[in-house]
């Protein structure tokens, strides 16, 4: 088992560090409905962590808890070993957690460039007066951050559409722009909610390549929700399996594949 705290090196030569994000005994309720029941798992520095499970298992709610949008009734979230006090989502983002959304949540009225620049919000702090005059710090910041954004645009190969309004883009490209926006924040932990949903095989391959490159080149830690088992098993270092708000499995792809509870959840089993 790779549950020890020490870092280790994977078969393909990447270094996985200590625990970065630790979720302990999380319970989340909406009114009387328990969406998540007493779940604990962790995410380690530099790894690709997958969360899988049938529809309605509470996977997206889990990401929403990590990004601070939902506040769990019980349990705690530790980031870098420190318990995270209740804070609004934009402060969580400031700690270095960025994400994409299941139903694309781009800013439809803005261009691709502006969308990605919005992702760099936390790297810009010129005063309102400097911005109003477009002089000094504001202008300098704008150019510096534009350079950073252009690197991401190059990386994701969306140079051609940078001035296009997002609302005119096809689905696959929108997904990519959303990833670009998340990357623009230069996050330590990147949360991807079904990054390949609705894509064809070619687009999925592109996306998988981007995810692996990201993890490899920039050492970004990634937690992703995905339904395509092939992709999940290929990409991830460890997998959490959820069903009806409970955790029913946790381990390497091989371990999870052999887990009886997981097989039951996916293939169905008579509850008698």
């Amino acid at each position, binding site marked *: 088992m790779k549950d020890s705290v020490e870092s280790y090196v994977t078969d393909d030569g990447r270094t996985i560090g200590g625990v970065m994000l630790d979720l302990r005994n999380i319970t989340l309720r909406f009114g009387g409905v328990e969406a998540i029941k007493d779940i604990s798992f962790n995410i380690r520095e530099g790894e690709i962590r997958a969360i899988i499970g049938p529809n309605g298992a509470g996977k997206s709610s889990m990401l929403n808890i990590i990004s601070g*949008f939902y506040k769990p009734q019980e349990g705690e979230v530790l980031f870098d070993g420190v318990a995270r006090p209740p804070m609004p989502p934009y402060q969580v983002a400031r700690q270095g957690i960025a994400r994409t*959304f*299941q139903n694309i949540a781009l800013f439809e009225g803005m261009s691709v460039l502006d969308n990605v620049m919005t992702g760099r919000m936390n790297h810009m702090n010129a005063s309102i007066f400097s911005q109003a005059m477009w002089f000094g710090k504001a202008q300098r910041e704008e150019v510096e951050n534009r350079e950073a954004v252009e690197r991401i645009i190059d990386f994701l190969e969306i140079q051609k559409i940078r001035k296009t309004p997002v609302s005119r883009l096809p689905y696959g490209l929108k997904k990519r722009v959303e990833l670009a926006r998340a990357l623009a924040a230069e996050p330590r932990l990147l949360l991807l909610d079904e990054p390949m949903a609705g894509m064809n095989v070619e687009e999925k391959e592109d996306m998988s390549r981007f995810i692996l490159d990201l993890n490899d080149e920039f050492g970004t830690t990634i937690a992703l929700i995905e339904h395509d088992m092939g992709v999940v098993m290929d990409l991830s270092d460890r997998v959490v399996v959820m069903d009806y708000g409970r955790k029913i499995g946790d381990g390497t792809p091989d371990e999870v594949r052999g887990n009886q509870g997981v097989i039951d959840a996916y293939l169905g089993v008579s509850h008698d």
Partner: protein
Amino acid sequence: MSSEFLYGIEVIINGLMAGVLYALVALGFVLIYKASGIFNYSQGVMALFAALTLVGIMEGQVPFSHLINAIFGTELHHFGWEVPAFLAIALTVVVMVIFAWLVQRFVFRHLVGQEPIILFMATIGLAYFLEGVGDLMWGSEIKTIALGLPQGNARWLEDVTSALGDDTFYGFFVRQLDIVAALVAMVLVTALIVFAQYTKQGRAMRAVADDHQAALSVGISLNFIWVLVWSLAGVVALVAGVMWGAKSGVQFSLSLIALKALPVLMLGGFTSIPGAIIGGLIIGVGEQLFEYTIGGPFLGGATENWFAYMLALLFLVFRPQGLFGEKIIERV
């Protein structure tokens, strides 16, 4: 009982009477909002327009006479007949139904699926349009409604209640018109509830309010329902317009008074009929009491201009979903 306390009660009673009218207008909003998600700012102007139309028909005015006269140089004003009240009311209802159909056909059919705020702004445009049309059709001078509604205060109530206090208390002063208005409003609300609960169209209406697509899939015509709710809202507007018109004359300010239904809705929630009624009563009583206790003596009066809005604003900050709305769970 001390007479101050009794005067306080009188203020509350009068507030309740005003509140009933607010609730009535608010009901028109709720009908349309539930069925189509449109927040109809023009409800107040609809009340004005309906009242103008009723007066115009009763007096036998030629519609658009000023415009026709200006274009053709004619001297048209009146047909020279007077229409009896019940017939005029029936004709006004027909006009409101036609209006509902036109609005649906030419405006909101083309805005299906737009954001709520766009729909809202479109209804502001509609309010302007309708105000202009009303003025063009019937002229903009202040009109009085001659429906034979009782005016003056209710003597019998005064006589009966004067016994409650000592010599300085002369009994509750309540206008007869307000009592009539309250009764009419109650009848109308009951009729609407019966309609919604026990008729086929009413059930279809509630189905649409619940889920547009599901309603479509079982063969309910959305278009028909929307015309229906706009017509019903027109009828409600007519009643509200008549009651207010009888009180203070049919004029533009009537549509501004009707705007008070907006804070009523914010208190009661946009989808709840009981909410609209209770919200209306709260606002009616609240603004009268505030004016009586604080506004008049300390703030120079006329606080009922803004009190309802401020109350709703403060209320919303602490309970954004209104009194009866469910807690909103946001999703991404």
